[in-house]
């Protein structure tokens, strides 16, 4: 072990907090981390101010783990700040790695989001006209808010990222392994993984690890999970439940399919897959049991909002990521 403690930071951008909870989910392991490392910033669990980070020398932090997507100017500012202060920057979780759930916002526009949330939302006070602005003056005082970007970005579209640990959230076992591997690398006990490595995952698709029995897939209609009680031993797709396992990387321990819930694709594209959505188009189409165009349309109509399911975590990573409607 090194003479001095490692200096690390954990930060959340556009995130739900689940990634931070997954770190706490490692239970007493977090105390092992505390033995070898000082946590200098971790908004959900520890004190630490941006000013403290700004006062550090460049590269003073050994590693920073950032979860969440880049949604506003504060996210971008802190991501760039931590990049400058850290030797190693890790994208932690699916939002930082692929854009994640916040990335679904790229299927619409900033103006539509602001209108829907602040003007049309049924829970608003009638007649509300207040919309958040980056700058506003109240009683002669200038107030500021982070500005809301036109698009959602994954972390490596904004700063240089060394490693990513995907998952929504990363499973505690994988988190432990990844952190131990990084600690060994940072303390010189092991060679660091090659830059750009995806940590805490397997080099195969989820289906390879799924214990459900797989035979021929022929489907006359699709079911939403609440419309059917699936057979616990048969592939969910064969039962007409849309499952993203085909196109998704294994690493989660197949937690959803073994619990009767279809894979949502949170571990990101399987090795060799460019876009989960495009691969799932192929997977679903090959299962549809019809050669009649009208019947095909009718069967596919039982799959509502296909894009949001097929690219649930990866809209900002699509090859078409930039062609959102303006």
């Amino acid at each position, binding site marked *: 072990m090194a003479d001095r403690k490692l200096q690390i930071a954990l930060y959340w951008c556009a995130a739900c907090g689940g990634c931070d909870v997954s770190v706490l989910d490692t239970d007493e392991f977090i105390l092992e981390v505390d033995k070898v490392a000082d946590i200098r910033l971790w908004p959900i669990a520890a004190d630490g101010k941006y000013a403290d980070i700004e006062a550090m020398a460049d590269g003073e932090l050994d590693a920073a783990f950032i979860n969440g997507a880049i949604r506003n100017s504060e996210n971008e500012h802190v991501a760039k700040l931590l990049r400058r202060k850290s030797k190693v920057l890790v994208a932690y979780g699916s939002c930082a790695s692929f854009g994640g759930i916040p990335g679904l916002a790229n299927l619409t526009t900033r103006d539509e989001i602001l209108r829907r949330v602040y003007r049309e939302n049924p829970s608003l006070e009638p007649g509300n006209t207040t919309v958040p602005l980056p700058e506003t003056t109240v009683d002669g005082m200038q107030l500021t808010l982070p500005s809301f970007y036109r698009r959602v970005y994954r972390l490596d579209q904004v700063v240089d990222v060394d490693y990513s640990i995907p998952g929504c959230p990363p499973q505690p076992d994988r988190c432990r392994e990844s952190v131990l591997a990084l600690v060994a690398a940072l303390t010189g006990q092991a060679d660091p993984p090659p830059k750009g490595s995806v940590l805490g995952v397997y080099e195969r698709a989820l289906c390879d690890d799924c214990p459900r029995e797989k035979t021929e897939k022929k489907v006359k209609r699709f079911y939403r999970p609440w419309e059917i009680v699936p057979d616990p031993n048969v592939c969910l797709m064969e039962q007409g439940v849309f499952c993203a396992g085909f196109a998704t990387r294994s690493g989660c321990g197949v937690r959803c399919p073994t619990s009767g819930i279809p894979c949502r694709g949170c571990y990101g594209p399987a090795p060799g897959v460019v876009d989960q959505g495009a691969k799932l*188009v192929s997977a679903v189409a*090959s299962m549809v049991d*019809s050669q009649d165009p009208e019947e095909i349309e009718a069967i596919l109509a039982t*799959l509502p909002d*296909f894009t949001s399911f097929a690219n649930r975590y990866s809209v900002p990573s699509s*090859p078409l*990521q*930039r*062609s959102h409607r*303006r």
Partner: protein
Amino acid sequence: MSYEPTIVGFLCNWCSYSGADLAGTSRIQYPPNIRIIRVMCSARVDPTFVLKALRDGADGVLVCGCHPGDCHYSEGNYKTMRRFPLLKKLLADYGIEDERVRLEWVSASEGQRFADIVSDMTEKLRALGPSPVKADLAHDAVER
């Protein structure tokens, strides 16, 4: 410079590529806007190829296969037929206009039909303007 649409065409080896060949040997005139890639079957066209073609600068993508019932591999074209409605949904959600990606059945004897499809698609894409993906790629910075 005036805008000329670029179309990437994926043509199946057995029917549509021969159809395009027939258009050529018959000296049928059609716009030079299409860049043809021969594939063994229309079902070989992974939807990823369509996305990549659009990202890499195509204004439109044309996929041609054997007529239903005529597939050299029995049912490859039915797989393509089933993929397209889903692929179109995906593309529409990313703001790609319907006319940019097209599936047509062209047999080896339909040289004229192939030329008509390429002419029609070129005109429609010319009217539609350049692909929005290209404009977005030019916009490389973070959009604040």
